[in-house]
Structures are given as structure tokens and as C-alpha cells.
């Protein structure tokens, strides 16, 4: 099988040209293809990333805003043989669905989460999100965001048993290795992908090349299983 067989051909992809989600999606398809597990189910919530579940040529469920995690947990408990992957965004998982994230991580529910962090509510046109950086201009913070962005790593690591990975589709091979390890992890695994929205950040004067170029320059990959600094990508796990 090739990863292209995991793409639903009849459904046009609606993401903006140049969006990092293409890279996220294709890399995820490659990992699922290489894992050779036909019992994979994709679950998502609402938003640009949430639309992604419909692009996989697999049984997939596109749920309500914020509810990807409990949908996935229900699927997994009902049939533990299924490999359940949540493919959703930061607004969905860390904002409106934040309570579900807290408790699924605490219960160590055996699901894998790919959280695409584009730092904004993108599909609705660029409102401030829990992940938006301090000072950023959005349509609902015209004078700049007055709050610090959420620390997903700290939330996940507050549980004794944990799996947190930070990567980016800009570092494709690294993301793929994180996803492989997350899928094999027995318990709750969370991958945060640094992937700023080129449209909503871009309209403030940056080109996609500049946005992705800054990520390439800023982040370095580490392999020593310790909490990550702000400019580091890697995996932090226990249990």
C-alpha cells in the first residue's frame, strides 16, 4: 500500500494553498500506511484541522466543536482493537474542549492526539485562541493579545504517566517519528505541532516563507526525554 491510498480522492481539500496542514496530513498518512494497521479510525472536532478527518480514506468521525476527545474515548472503550487517532486543532482541543483534554490525559486513555497549533481560530477568520502569543494582533485583540499563550506541555506533564511531543510539519521526519512513537505508546499521547496559520498571520505582513523560515531557525530537536524549552522539539514521556 502507498500512503496515497489513505487519501480520500473524491473529497477536495479545502485548506489554503501553502498551509502547513498539507504536510501534517501527508506525514500522518505515511505513518499510518507504514504501520500497516487497517483498524485505524480518525476522529476530529471543528476547525481547519478538524476538516482533516474527512480527507483520510478510513472510517473517520468529524464531531462537534471541542468534542473530538470524548468521541475518540467512546470509540476506543467500545472497541479497544481500534487504533484511534484524534486529528484536530488548538482551538478545539485546548480551548472549547480543554476539559476533555485535562481528564483524558489524567485517565491515561489510550488514544493518540495530533494537535495542530496554528495559534489562532483560523476557520472563523483569525480570532484570538488560547495559543495566541502575548501581544499578537488578531481580529478580537486589535490592540494586541493581553494574555500569555496556554502551556500544553505543562498540562500533559502534570500527570505522572504522560506522553507529550512537540514537533512541526516543517520538521517532517521528526513529526513522523513522534507519531510512530505516540501510536505505539500504551496510554494517552499528545503531539503538539507548531504550524502557524499563514493566512491569518500572513495578512499582518509575513509571507509563508518567512513564517516557516522562522520556525526552522528557532527550533532545535532534542532527544533526552526532559521537559522542553520554548525553542525545543522532542518527546517527553513516562509510563
Amino acid at each position: 500500500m502507498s500512503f496515497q491510498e489513505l487519501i480520500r480522492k473524491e473529497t477536495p481539500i479545502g485548506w489554503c494553498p501553502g498551509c502547513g496542514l498539507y504536510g501534517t496530513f501527508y506525514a500522518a498518512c505515511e505513518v499510518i500506511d507504514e504501520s500497516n494497521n487497517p483498524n485505524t479510525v480518525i476522529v476530529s472536532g471543528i476547525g481547519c484541522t478538524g476538516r482533516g478527518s474527512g480527507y483520510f480514506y478510513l472510517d473517520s468521525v468529524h464531531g462537534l466543536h471541542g468534542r473530538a476527545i470524548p468521541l475518540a474515548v467512546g470509540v476506543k472503550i467500545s472497541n479497544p482493537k481500534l487504533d484511534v487517532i484524534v486529528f484536530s486543532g488548538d482551538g478545539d482541543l485546548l480551548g472549547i474542549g480543554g476539559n476533555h483534554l485535562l481528564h483524558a490525559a489524567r485517565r491515561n486513555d489510550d488514544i493518540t492526539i495530533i494537535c495542530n497549533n496554528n495559534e489562532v481560530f483560523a476557520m472563523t477568520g483569525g480570532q484570538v485562541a488560547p495559543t495566541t502569543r502575548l501581544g499578537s494582533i488578531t481580529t478580537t485583540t486589535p490592540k494586541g493579545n493581553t494574555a500569555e499563550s496556554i502551556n500544553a506541555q505543562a498540562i500533559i506533564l502534570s500527570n505522572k504517566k504522560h506522553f507529550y511531543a512537540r514537533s512541526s510539519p516543517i520538521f517532517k521526519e521528526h513529526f513522523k517519528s513522534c507519531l510512530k512513537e505516540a501510536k505505539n505508546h500504551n496510554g494517552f499521547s499528545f503531539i503538539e505541532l507548531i504550524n502557524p496559520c499563514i493566512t491569518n498571520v500572513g495578512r499582518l505582513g509575513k509571507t509563508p516563507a518567512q513564517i516557516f523560515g522562522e520556525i526552522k531557525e528557532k527550533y532545535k530537536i532534542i532527544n533526552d526525554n526532559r521537559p522542553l524549552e520554548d525553542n525545543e522539539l522532542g518527546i517527553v514521556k513516562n509510563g
Partner: protein
Amino acid sequence: MVNIARLLSGNDAVVEGALAAGLDFFSAYPITPATEIMESIAKTNVKFIQGEDEIAAITMCIGASLAGSKAMTATSGPGFSLKQESIGYAFKIGVPLLIVCCQRVGPSTGMATFGAQGDILQAKHGSHGDYVNIVITPNSVEECYKYTIEAINASEESHSPVILLVDGLIAHMHETVILEGLKSAIKKRSLEPLGSGKRHFTGLTSKGNTPKDKDPLIYREWYNARKKEILDAAKNYEFYEYIQNPNSDTLLVAYGISSRVILSLRNRYSIFRPIRLFPIIEELEGIAKKYHKIVIIEMNDGQYRDEIQSFLKREVRLISQLGGKISLAEIQNELSRID
């Protein structure tokens, strides 16, 4: 085999009915007066998780149902409100699911330990947009058993969420019951479980597995077919009771606990008791024509009165019993004024 009489509460009987109907998965969040349902199921072999909140509980049920489990959740008014968006979602994607709502008094937190019938309208249509629901309401412990089975069957047959509206009084009332012989044939799951195909389940208006949310025609086609599926299935669940008194020119309408309280009035009046509240029982139209007056007795401010008034296109008088108190003396007093 000896049929054993057992002393059960309405909530106990809901659990017994769900087990008899082949329940595989249950999730809920603690709420009076429904909590005992969850506590009882936690002791069985049914796959169970206590949700972190009401929305998580129903969403886990939807996921479990998609993955092949007969699923159920149980709640009361405040939790039922929180679940409404998910009920519309389950309708949209065609997922069988039973939602039990044990009604209590009030808007907001209200009077948690007092029973009521205040969730009639949100059971009919508490979610947004176009949809139809099958809503069934029992009036005894025995019926809690019987109609839990029927409600799960109806959800399987209609591929949609079904509401079992219990009131807090029936939920906590204990009665001696013999459950043997009450069970109807169990409907099997027809939806293929997740993992067996290449389907895409989405809340978006779609054609096949592809979202198509810019075409009114696709929406209309989808909705009409979905509505028909549910209304057709509902024909197999036409539950009501009609007690005819040839000397009466007044028809009393009551359901749930109210119908128990007014039962002794059958010596003077005819009584119509809808067990399936929605879709409204069609036969009511013909029955109502025989009476000069129609009076409804319910523990809310006229929720079902408004529904049958618009269904029958004539006046329906209301005797409203609010605040968790229902009294035959009060009802008789009001009836004498209407007479």
C-alpha cells in the same frame, strides 16, 4: 420457571430494561434524580465510564455507538440542556442512542430532589435546526423496564437518538413488579461498526462521504429522507392508553406521574395517556372529536398543552401542577371550576 416479584425503583427498572435490550456501553455524569442509574450500571459488565461532564458523557456514547455498542446515557434537566447539541449531532450522523432524562423542578438548578415534567419541549426539540425525535414517557416502574427496551429498539430502528422521559417521582418510586414476559423482541444493530469501512461521519451537510455544505437541494434531500426514516420507524412505537368513560364529555390528558395521580378520576372522565409524547399520537385527533372539553394535567406551565393545542387546532385547558407538588384535591378543585 417461577416469576419472582421484585421491589424496584423506576431507575432500577430502567437499568434492568437496558440490560435486557443488550446495552453494551454507558456513560453519564452524576445528577439527581438520575444518578442511581449510573451507580447500578457501574456494578455490571457493561462498558462504563463516568464522564468528566455531561457533554463528555453523551459524546462518549456517540463514539461508542459508532464503534458498534448499544449505548445509553442518563441525566436530568440541567444535564439534558448541556447534551442538546450532541442530540442534534447524533440525529445528523444517524447514530442509535438512548438518552434517559429523569425530570426535576425548575429552570437552572431548581429543586433537584423534586420531580417534575419540565423537559417536554427540550425533549422534543432542544437542539438547533431541523430534526425530529421519538420521545417516550413511562408512568410506572414496570413501564420503566418495558419502555426502556422499546426506546432502545426504536433508536436502533430509526438510527437516531431516542429520549426516555422519566420524572423524578417515577425514577425514585418503588413498586413491586414481575418483569418476566414484558420484554419485546430485541432489535439488532444494523449500522456497521467503525473500523469496517471507509466512511466519513460528519455533522456537516454532506453527500455520501463528502461534505457539501453550499447546496440547499442536498440539504433538503438529506433532511426529508432522514425525517421519513424516523417517522416510519415511529409507526412501530405508537404507545398510548385511552380509558373511555361513556358518560363524560370531557377528555383528560395526562402522562407520567400525573396520569397515575388522576387515574381515580376515570369514574367521571375519559382519560387519554400518551406514552409516546413525540411524534404526537395521530389517534388523538379522532378521539378528541368525541369530547366538548379537553383538559391536560401536567407538572409544568403548559408545555405539552401548547403542543396538542396546535396539533388539534382547538382549545385545551391546562391544570398546571408546579414546584414538584401534585395533588388530586387541587386537580379536582380546578376541574370543578372548569366544569
